[in-house]
């Protein structure tokens, strides 16, 4: 950890807050962002979470200066940076497909931002060398400095991209689906690693992802976006347990919807997570519904049970292996289900 804090001090510029006000952006007839507002505090790690087309990558690129908004402003520490070019914003950007310079070695890639500085700002050759090696140590790619990107694995390339972005001491780090192109095992490892890195360096960071698990695991705060608008901003606990809209609830995990008989499927209904469904062999009084087991299968540490209620709703429940040993559920069993924790939404579900 001593090494880390030393590195953190050596690598950090001042941290910076980001403010986006009323950002609107269209591509031809497609509106990507509709008057979006976003606040990112100094040192925070914020996730922009949403499906494709939600506008999250567009928002990130506008903050970076790689796109220009049709309307709205971007402020860095209170300064209006809206018209500033990407070059002048001092943001570190990590691309989904790495965008490493294919003809340059790892060393040259990481050193690039330092080499292109105007002569008076450019560090001496030795200084550049030290900085690059320090960064390569940080991302654990020492000894790879002479390799070409084509000789690296996906995870290694992503780490080079990160080192390259950090080399210029950005005040903000922006990552566009940084682990999207990697295998799931590598993704999990890198996720953990990024979290630790952020804990050491404390650079204000914003990353884009469509993977809710990733957002919940990494971020201080999650911004859920859909169709160019922000649906909710909150801590991972808040967006998972207190979703503000149906969309947030459905996007952040599996969902069961319990309805009264004959209710319009687009309105009403109560929303229940699979692990909040209680299954019993005896009727339990108010709130219990009879159901027939359709399928039971093991899914890693839990057991997934599919049931069909009397009113025809499909319910997906998740129980522990202990519970299954006690209940011994099997196909065609007649049981009773009861939602333990649930949520209802008043507003209309807009399509």
């Amino acid at each position: 950890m001593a090494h880390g804090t030393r590195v953190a001090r050596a690598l950090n510029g001042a941290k910076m807050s980001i403010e986006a006000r009323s950002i609107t952006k269209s591509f031809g007839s497609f509106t990507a962002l509709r008057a979006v507002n976003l606040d990112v505090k100094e040192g925070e790690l914020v996730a922009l979470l949403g499906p494709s087309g939600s506008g999250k990558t567009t928002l990130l690129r506008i903050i970076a200066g790689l796109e220009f908004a049709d309307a709205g402003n971007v402020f860095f520490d209170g300064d209006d940076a809206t018209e500033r070019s990407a070059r002048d914003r001092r943001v570190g950007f990590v691309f989904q497909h790495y965008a490493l310079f294919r003809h340059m070695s790892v060393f040259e890639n990481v050193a690039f931002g330092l080499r292109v500085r105007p002569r008076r700002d450019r560090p001496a050759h030795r200084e550049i060398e030290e900085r690059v090696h320090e960064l390569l140590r940080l991302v654990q790619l020492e000894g790879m400095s002479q390799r070409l990107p084509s000789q690296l694995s996906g995870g290694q390339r992503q780490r080079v991209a990160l080192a390259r972005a950090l080399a210029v001491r950005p005040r903000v780090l922006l990552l566009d689906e940084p682990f999207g192109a990697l295998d799931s095992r590598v993704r999990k490892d890198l996720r953990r690693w990024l979290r630790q890195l952020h804990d050491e360096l404390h650079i204000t960071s914003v990353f884009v992802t469509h993977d809710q698990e990733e957002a919940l695991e990494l971020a201080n705060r999650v911004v859920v976006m859909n169709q160019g608008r922000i649906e909710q901003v909150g801590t991972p606990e808040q967006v998972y347990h207190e979703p503000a809209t149906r969309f947030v609830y459905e996007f952040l995990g599996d969902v069961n919807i319990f309805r009264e008989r004959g209710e319009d499927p687009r309105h009403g209904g109560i929303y229940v997570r699979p692990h909040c469904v209680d299954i019993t062999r005896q009727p339990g009084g108010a709130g219990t519904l009879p159901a027939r087991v359709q399928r039971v299968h093991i899914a890693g540490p839990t057991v997934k049970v599919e049931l069909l209620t009397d009113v025809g709703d499909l319910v997906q429940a998740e129980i522990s292996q202990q519970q299954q040993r006690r209940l011994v559920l099997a196909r065609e069993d007649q049981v009773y289900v009861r939602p333990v924790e649930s949520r209802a939404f008043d507003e209309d579900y807009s399509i």
Partner: protein
Amino acid sequence: MTSAPAQPDWTLAAPTPARAASAVADPPWVRVLLIGVALVFLGLFLVLPLVTVFAQAFSKGIGVYVDAITDPMALAAMRLTLLVAAVSVPVNAVFGVAAAWAIAKFEFRGKSLLISLIDLPFAVSPVVSGLIFVLLFGAQGLVGPWLIEHGVRIIFAVPGILLATTFITFPFVARELIPLMQEQGTEEEEAAVSLGASGFQAFRRVTLPNVSLGLLYGVVLLNARAMGEFGAVSVVSGHIRGKTNTMPLHVEILYNEYQGAAAFAVASLLALLAVVTLIVKRVLEWRMGRASRAL
């Protein structure tokens, strides 16, 4: 401290392998027959002419050969040919790079029209190409008389040859770089800009190295065409020996004067250039890792 991923996670794309023998291969007799016919056809149309050039060049002995290529008129023709290449190659290379940058890195209206216009010289007969410059700059042309009055001779002089050749060879580098730069996209340049590079720095340090092989390829093809152009140059040059004859024109003159061996001697130098061009083209294609394409 932070622990790196434990397992290797190679996601490198494998290079396209040569086509393996499959279970649906053609029967041997078919293969032999087809290969045989193809080789005979190519032998007649390609190998035989190539061999003939050199055979005819030396048919009257080494002495005649050497005399032919050291003849002052021949040397003047070689100098002019080299000059033509020295002018048209860099000029069209710069154009090709600029056009490819504009087309590949930006979105704008009229892009496909621009690309079609760049292809134009390919559609025009070399003779017509020469003709249009005669119509413009010739003694009876649109601006010709005015220029001649001011002492500027274009047609039947070296500038006309340079112009015509530059026109003919103008698409080569552009056509090579445009699809290449389009394929490479803009991400690396965006990364460079986000790291603080100016436009020119991004171009010089990121784009240029990425297209260097493609640029070289285009230049090699351009050069071969520039040095070998006959039809257009024939029209604008006036065939003034020692002054406005390029090597191909010189070959024509010698041939028409029944100096066959001498004509072939000079022609053999051009044929040698062609062979070298083919070799370099091949090497570059291999380095770029792709199959031969139609020009």
